[in-house]
């Protein structure tokens, strides 16, 4: 999933959702007069440059002018226009790439999977454009191969040895849990280091302490609170991922409370609960119709279909909400991001993706991936607070953009 995220940096990519009206969405419904009388304090900063002057002129023309509001309006020093993220991927082109790589992976018994993965990431990042430039992914496939072989070896050892000494499985499980923070940090760092934009690399710090706290300590809290802590944990996870990323010497920051996360999961949960009730009613109806005979597996199908669809939609609803929330609260230095992913459109898109995938036995995966990415990129904007050229490289590391820095990283990717 991480692959499909637009800007490789905050791999977080992944989720967010702003209830607040995004600048793009606000124009149509709001009459100019209303804007004039009550300048929306929250909006000015985010307004596209073209829209602001227009609204002002209108306001001047209207009789009841309150000088105060106009003064209050903070006029940021020439707010730069929103820079859209654009995805240039093409479904046909990606299909050809995907099918060839999938076949080669099968023919090589999985060895080629590392190359296929790098090509996939390069394709998605290399087709994502903002401010006139694309993202570059330059991981060496053999590093992924090492990680893959290690994982395969551990898995086989786990199965084979565990067959003889079951205690080994418990030990391996505990070892895996303890190593999880390290694995997460390594993977994020590996991918960040191998992604660059305009010749400047992304970085991910080495916050093993907070990773352990997050993935071990807080995981326990989730269990103790029977999952009620989960939305807050999601917030903390995004915070952890975004805030430890850098582009060159510029830090990413993420500032958000937990309530939007709770809200998103609450709505998602209600969707699932509602579907469970509707499904139950349908099942009860079927039971009544056949005079109390207990329904067989086939008669449970409507229930399973309703529940499954609702669960799927709820997942993507939460994804869209959190996508907006995370990106709208993410800063890169003084610059910020504006996300306006519409939940309804996103759920429709994912539902058609699902149907297409099922109908084509998975062959339409490239089409689904490309159109998801195009939609996500189209919902995201970068809002520079000034020239971005001031962002520089980190430290004085010279040498090739590809060569040495990766070497200090035992670059492994565990497929997270």
């Amino acid at each position, binding site marked *: 999933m991480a692959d499909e995220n637009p800007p490789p940096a905050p791999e977080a990519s992944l989720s967010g959702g702003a209830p607040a009206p995004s600048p793009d969405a606000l124009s149509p419904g709001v009459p100019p007069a209303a804007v004039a009388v009550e300048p929306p304090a929250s909006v000015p900063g985010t307004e596209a440059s073209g829209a602001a002057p227009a609204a002002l002129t209108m306001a001047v023309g209207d009789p009841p002018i309150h000088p105060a509001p106009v003064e209050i309006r903070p006029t940021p020093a020439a707010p730069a226009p929103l820079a859209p993220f654009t995805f240039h991927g093409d479904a046909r082109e990606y299909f050809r790439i995907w099918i*060839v790589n999938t076949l080669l992976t099968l023919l090589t018994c999985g060895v080629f999977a590392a190359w296929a993965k790098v090509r996939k990431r*390069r394709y998605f990042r290399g087709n994502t454009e903002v401010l006139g430039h694309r993202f*570059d992914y330059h991981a060496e496939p053999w590093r992924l191969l090492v990680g893959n072989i290690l994982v395969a070896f551990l898995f086989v050892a786990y199965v084979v040895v565990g067959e003889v000494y079951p205690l080994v499985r418990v030990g391996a499980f505990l070892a895996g849990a303890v190593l999880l923070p390290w694995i997460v940090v390594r993977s994020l760092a590996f991918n960040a280091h191998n992604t*660059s934009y305009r010749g400047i690399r992304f970085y991910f710090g080495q916050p093993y302490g907070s990773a352990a706290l997050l993935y071990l300590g807080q995981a326990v809290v989730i269990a103790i609170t029977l999952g009620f802590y989960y939305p807050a944990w999601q917030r903390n996870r995004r915070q952890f991922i975004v805030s430890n990323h850098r582009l060159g010497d510029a830090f990413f920051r993420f500032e958000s409370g937990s309530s939007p996360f709770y809200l998103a999961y609450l709505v998602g949960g209600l969707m699932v609960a509602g579907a469970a009730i509707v499904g139950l009613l349908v099942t009860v109806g079927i039971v009544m119709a056949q005079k109390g005979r207990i329904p067989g597996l086939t008669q449970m199908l409507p229930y399973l279909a309703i529940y499954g669809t609702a669960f799927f939609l709820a997942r993507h609803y939460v994804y869209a909400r959190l996508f907006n929330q995370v990106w709208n609260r993410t800063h890169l230095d003084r610059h910020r991001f504006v996300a306006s992913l519409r939940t309804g459109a996103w759920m429709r898109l994912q539902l058609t993706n699902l149907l297409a995938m099922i109908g084509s036995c998975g062959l339409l995966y490239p089409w689904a991936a490309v159109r998801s990415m195009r939609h996500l990129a189209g919902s995201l904007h970068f809002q520079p607070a000034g020239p971005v050229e001031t962002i520089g490289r980190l430290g004085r590391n010279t040498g090739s953009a590809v060569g040495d820095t990766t070497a200090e990283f035992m670059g492994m990717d565990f497929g997270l």
Partner: protein
Amino acid sequence: MNTIAAQFLDGRHLAARPAEVSREDDRLIVAGEGFRHAFPVREVRVSDRLGRIPRYLYLPDGATVETTAHDAVDAFLPSTRRTRLARLLHWLESHTAFAAGATALLLVAIGLTMVLGLPVAARHLALQVPDAMDRRAGEVSLAAMSKFTQPSGLSAARRREIEALAADLAALRGLPPPRVEFRSMGGRFPNAFALPGRIIVVTDELVEIAGSDGELQAVLAHELGHVHHRHSLQGVFRGSAALLVVTLVSGDLSALTTFSASIPFVLLQRGYSREFEEEADDYAAETLRLAGVDLDEFAAILGKLEGSREGLAVDYSYLSTHPHTDDRIKRIDRNAPRAPRSR
């Protein structure tokens, strides 16, 4: 030599400057307004070609050149093993014919895995199932079968005789005696079934139709073949690829018991696959040879079973998927040397 239009990224700041890249002997020249750099061509690495995404020339001092002039870049830089592989990949990826071929190959591979791999996995898995689990599956399917059969009307003595026949046959193959269950099918469908848990169900109707113990032995030997190969469990795994995959991956067999309840219904309606029947026939032929039972007995009971099916409006007999009786007899004759005449 011509030049390539590109963007120069100095690696120090997030700034891009237009530049022209050219080659002078074995040096790569990157020049633009107010700068001109030269690098040994050998030390320049180029990103592989992929779709239409920009190409990056990674320069030895940490700077990068970004360009979309793919063909020019390819022509510019020396070809190494790495770039040749990348070029081959790109060539494969950019031809629709290869995409179509790969799709077809992939579908064929998946189909072959399903057709060839599924039975192998099902057999492997069925033989792996622990005896305790096999017995539990047997109880479940026997209970399911009891719902549409009646208690047997055979005398206890006759039952013991038949049990002894089955035990003797099993002993010839070095196996513990199977558990023989007797059921009545309401006067129709002379039949015998092999269930999990080493259970052989014999119907009263079969015992009535059999003219001799030899004929009963033939049927029992055949069912012992199913028991030996655990065809009932194999059938369950073959019938549900989902169960097979889940069990293979997780090693959890608990779902198997649930599925076992369906075994009698499947046996009654579709029977075993032709392949299973032939396996059981081969097993029976060998067992009967060891027991000194003439294969004519097998042929005789097969003929009677076939005759009993005629005239049924709905063919419920599990024999319906059996190979044609004549073929089966010929097959056994061919594969198994005749036992010396016992009579």
